[in-house]
């Protein structure tokens, strides 16, 4: 129990808790509740019918594809970037770290636009692609590129502070004992970073599946072909098919809630496995929060 002279009077405490909870209830809980309320307003039958729609299914498949591509690519990039940055000294390291953060601060619409400028009808590579019959913009490859752009920093941003805090001693010991690079990574580094890596994967997949602005620019909104779930929600909403839009949106809300639960679990697991997390600093660097679900 906190002694009286180190805390506020009961009335002040109650007021702060009350105001904080009321603010969160209005700005967080109500929007979440309204998604399910609007989706289920006209009954379960219509709710399930909205999810069984073939366009909804193809949107769900495409959204899962986004996550399936973004996760492995970002894991490989994240590990490579964190390895180079935390295990070696080289000039321009600070600049490299800032550049890895760059996609966080770029507006998602700008992120989509750059790929239209590169591969679209007036783009640099358009003549070549046209001759080869390859479509990137207004097709799935464009969606993948835009998703990779916006999810670019997530895994790297988790691993860099974690690996920097852990230092090189264990890896150096392994090398001295004759481990090759492959053994070194699988037996020494990976077990140490697994929770941070998993955390980065959660953030990365949440963003990959929820991205709106960037994919909206490159999608072309072709039904059943280039609509991810968020884009399909937009189309239904703009057609005044509110119930169907909210039904599909509730699926995304459930995914978001699952990722919050996983995130809380990973945090408690990583604290337990590290014993004294405060000694190596917070595992979850605040910069990793920049724009997770942008769009």
């Amino acid at each position, binding site marked *: 129990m906190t002694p009286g002279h180190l805390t506020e009077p009961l009335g002040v405490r109650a007021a702060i808790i009350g105001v904080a909870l009321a603010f969160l209830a209005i700005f967080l809980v109500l929007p979440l509740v309204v998604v399910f309320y609007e989706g289920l307003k006209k009954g379960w039958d219509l709710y399930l019918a909205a999810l069984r729609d073939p366009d909804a299914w193809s949107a769900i498949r495409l959204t899962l594809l986004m996550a399936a591509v973004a996760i492995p690519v970002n894991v490989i990039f994240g590990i490579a970037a964190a390895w180079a940055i935390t295990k070696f000294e080289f000039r321009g390291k600070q600049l490299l770290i800032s550049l890895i953060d760059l996609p966080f601060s770029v507006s998602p619409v700008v992120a989509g*636009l*750059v790929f239209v400028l590169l591969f679209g009808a007036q783009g640099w590579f358009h003549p070549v692609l046209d001759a080869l019959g390859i479509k990137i913009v207004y097709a799935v490859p464009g969606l993948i590129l835009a998703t990779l752009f916006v999810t670019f920093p997530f895994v790297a941003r988790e691993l860099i502070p974690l690996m920097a805090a852990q230092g*090189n001693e264990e890896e150096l010991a392994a090398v001295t004992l004759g481990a090759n690079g492959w053994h070194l990574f699988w037996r020494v580094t990976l077990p140490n970073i697994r929770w941070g890596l998993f955390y980065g994967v959660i953030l990365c997949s949440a963003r990959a599946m929820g991205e709106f602005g960037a994919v909206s620019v490159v999608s072309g909104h072709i039904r059943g072909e280039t609509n991810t779930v968020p884009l399909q929600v937009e189309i239904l909403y703009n057609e005044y098919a509110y119930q169907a839009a909210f039904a599909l949106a509730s699926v995304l809300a459930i995914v978001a809630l699952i990722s919050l639960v996983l995130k809380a679990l990973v945090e408690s697991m990583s604290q337990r496995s590290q014993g004294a997390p405060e000694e190596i600093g917070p595992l979850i660097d605040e910069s990793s929060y920049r724009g997770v679900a942008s769009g």
Partner: protein
Amino acid sequence: MMTDRLLMSAAVGPAAAQLYQAEPRRALPGFGLSLGFTLSYLGLLVLLPLSTLFFKSAGLGLDAFWDVVTSPRVVASYRLSFGAALLAATVNLVFGLLVAWALVRYTFPGKKVVDALVDLPFALPTAVAGIALTALYANNGWIGRLFEPFGIKLAYTPAGVVIALIFIGLPFVVRTVQPVLEDLERELEEASASLGASRWQTFRLVIFPSVLPALLTGYALAFARAVGEYGSVVFIAGNMPMVSEITPLLIISRLEQYDYAGAAAIAVVMLLASLLMLLVINGLQFWQANRFRSEQ
């Protein structure tokens, strides 16, 4: 390989040995591979695509570029995007500090759930947030209904833009202030109280200055995020030219008119603004890190 180097340094003498000493960290494998891959991926996926913005808008020429980025409709959109982002970040500054304080200092039922829920705006896709907020704040919505009798419209006005940006920026201040509050040494407050300071004086003169850099970092992050936000805003904004049209939306409408250079020109302005914000945020984080160093 390491033994080769050691043999070599023994053969060539102290100078070479010193050279080797200067780079002890290269003892681990994979430097070339990991850095090479990182730089190529960064270059191809991020830097090369972003550079097209400058090339494309340069095709306009300076005068035309200036005309595009200072046309009245675009300037009105800057005013809305930056003004609403500033207002929303300020609201989050105040309430974010309150929420962080309640989560760190007090116990109440359901605290763990509340703590996890703070991240909802990061996890919930922005399009979902956008339609949910619109449903809530429209004239017949649960909240909009309460304001309607007074003739106050929230959805489809600039007020709606601010509401969406408050939602989007909410976690930034909480999550930057929370760890700093947790690490704050209670001994400082103990000392302050024993020297006769009231609780308010202790907060104002001891606690607040320690969390100020984190508070401002969270503020800047929330602002930077809000300026470029698109998904949660387009549904609730109403998108009326000159009134409730955000800058990212203007980029899209240029693109829909096949005005690629015009879209790129507005995007350059937004990119420069985000680079500036990145600089400010790095500066704030440097301040925060140094402050901790000087305390230790």
